[in-house]
């Protein structure tokens, strides 16, 4: 483990002041990703600012019928919150599909958003990685890239964002509330994470002086017709090879609103507005779902070991949309895929 200075933030304003004054410091909340990365010496912050005691742990209803979730609500508490289970079951399901109960008890909502990729080459400091060391190259592109991205990749990075929670937040059109030196702003979850381009070292659009304070869910929760299907190399406690979040609003068998996002395939939760447009007004059936899958994956590109992900994603999209339409969401305990 590296050595570092440790400080606590007294409140949000103090946290922002401290992080702005020290460009190499990092916030720590749950620590489940950062401490791991520090042990591997992938992250070497000279100073940690502990934000875990800030009063950002409430879940409150908003005047518009949505929910405002404090950034420090543990993942478990969020997944088990009665209002989330009732109104946004796809979010509960996605959270419960990720990590282990011990990690979910520690991990915070805000920290889940800013967790880093699990690309093997990012974690191995002896390998080239543009995300870890800009300009050093990408060892994954010609390496063992089974877990890597098939959508939105660049010549400098094929890493994926590992979160399950964020895939559900993307279909729910959640917003991220952040506070920085110049005040507070909102960022749509779909605009929060970035594609790698030629700056893969920048995971998201959070500024250096900003702290995530809350996640806001709009009123529409797709509680009737939704599913989160996660495909991985073992049945639990593994990152997604491909995951799909599907949410439908149906009206006499036709799709009024369809939402679709994928995890494990890109540098960000992958939402396809074009595929969603192709769902709108159509019969909720296999032909419609297959067409949507074709649109999502039209520009998909494999890198050898991960070529299988394209077909896997196509089938997973159709399966998850079918589960959503039939109101038979994937169970995260019973592993049979129906």
């Amino acid at each position, binding site marked *: *483990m*590296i*050595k*570092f*200075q*440790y400080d606590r933030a007294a409140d949000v304003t103090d946290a922002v002041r401290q992080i702005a004054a*020290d*460009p*190499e*410091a990092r916030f*720590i909340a749950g*620590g*489940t990703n950062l*401490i*791991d990365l520090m*042990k*591997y010496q992938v992250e*070497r912050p*000279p*100073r*940690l600012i*502990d934000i*875990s005691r800030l009063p950002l742990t409430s879940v409150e209803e908003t005047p518009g019928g949505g929910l405002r979730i404090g950034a420090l609500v543990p993942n*478990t508490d969020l997944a*088990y919150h009665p209002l989330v289970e009732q109104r946004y079951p796809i979010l509960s399901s996605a959270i419960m599909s990720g*990590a*282990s*109960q*011990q*990690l979910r*008890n*520690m991990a915070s909502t805000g920290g889940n958003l800013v967790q880093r990729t699990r690309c093997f080459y990012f974690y191995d400091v002896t390998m080239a990685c543009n995300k870890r060391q800009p300009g050093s190259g990408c060892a994954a592109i010609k390496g063992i890239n089974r877990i890597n991205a098939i959508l939105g990749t660049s010549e400098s990075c094929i890493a994926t964002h590992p979160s399950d929670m964020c895939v559900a937040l993307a279909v729910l059109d959640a917003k991220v509330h952040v506070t920085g030196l110049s005040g507070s702003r909102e960022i749509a979850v779909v605009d929060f994470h970035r594609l790698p381009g030629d700056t893969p070292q920048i995971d998201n659009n959070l500024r250096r002086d900003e702290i995530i304070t809350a996640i806001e869910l709009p009123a529409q929760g797709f509680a009737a017709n939704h599913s989160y299907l996660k495909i991985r190399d073992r049945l*639990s*406690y593994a990152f997604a090879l491909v995951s799909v979040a599907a949410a439908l609003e149906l009206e006499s068998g036709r799709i009024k609103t369809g939402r679709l996002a994928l995890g494990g395939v890109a540098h960000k939760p992958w939402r396809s507005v074009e595929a969603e447009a192709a769902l709108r007004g159509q019969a909720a059936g296999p032909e419609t779902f297959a067409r949507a899958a074709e649109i999502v994956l039209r520009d998909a590109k494999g890198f050898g070991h991960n070529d299988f992900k394209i077909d896997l994603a196509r089938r997973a999209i159709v399966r998850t949309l079918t589960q959503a339409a039939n109101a038979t969401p994937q*169970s*995260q*305990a*019973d*592993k049979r895929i129906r």
Partner: protein
Amino acid sequence: MSDVSRSAAMAAPATINVTLEVNGRSCTLTIAPWTTLLDALRDRLGLTGTKKGCDQGQCGACTVLVDGRRINSCLTLAVMKDGAKVTTIEGLETDGTLHPLQQAFIDHDAFQCGYCTPGQICSAAGLIAEGKAKTPDQIRELMSGNICRCGAYPNILAAIQQAMTAMGGKS
């Protein structure tokens, strides 16, 4: 690292006082901020029941209860838990009587080498306190953070079910 932050890190006090209530006893430790809760328990308090397996949050051998919730002590800085109540495998028995989970693990031979066992038992104590697992599938899923390389999973499941019944679903 910039010169400014390098000098800040070097000027930092090397140790911090942390008070923990471990298995019902208050302990004040003077530790470096980079000490994990796992290392504080094992190396400073001599509570070696909690095991260091992967040290990366992937195996669950280091599972302890902090304020009643199961967590990975290897990914927790002890300084961040100042004031918390920690329960380790050593704290589960009462006056020489084994905790129902400890007894159930013996009854069902729910281990081979035993290295993962303290983590399995602390995790199961957390699981029972959560009250979410009712079916075998649910128990398996919510225990997936504890790896057993010997593969004693069927016996671990049976032991947890026995303890759950014995405890009436409560911790």
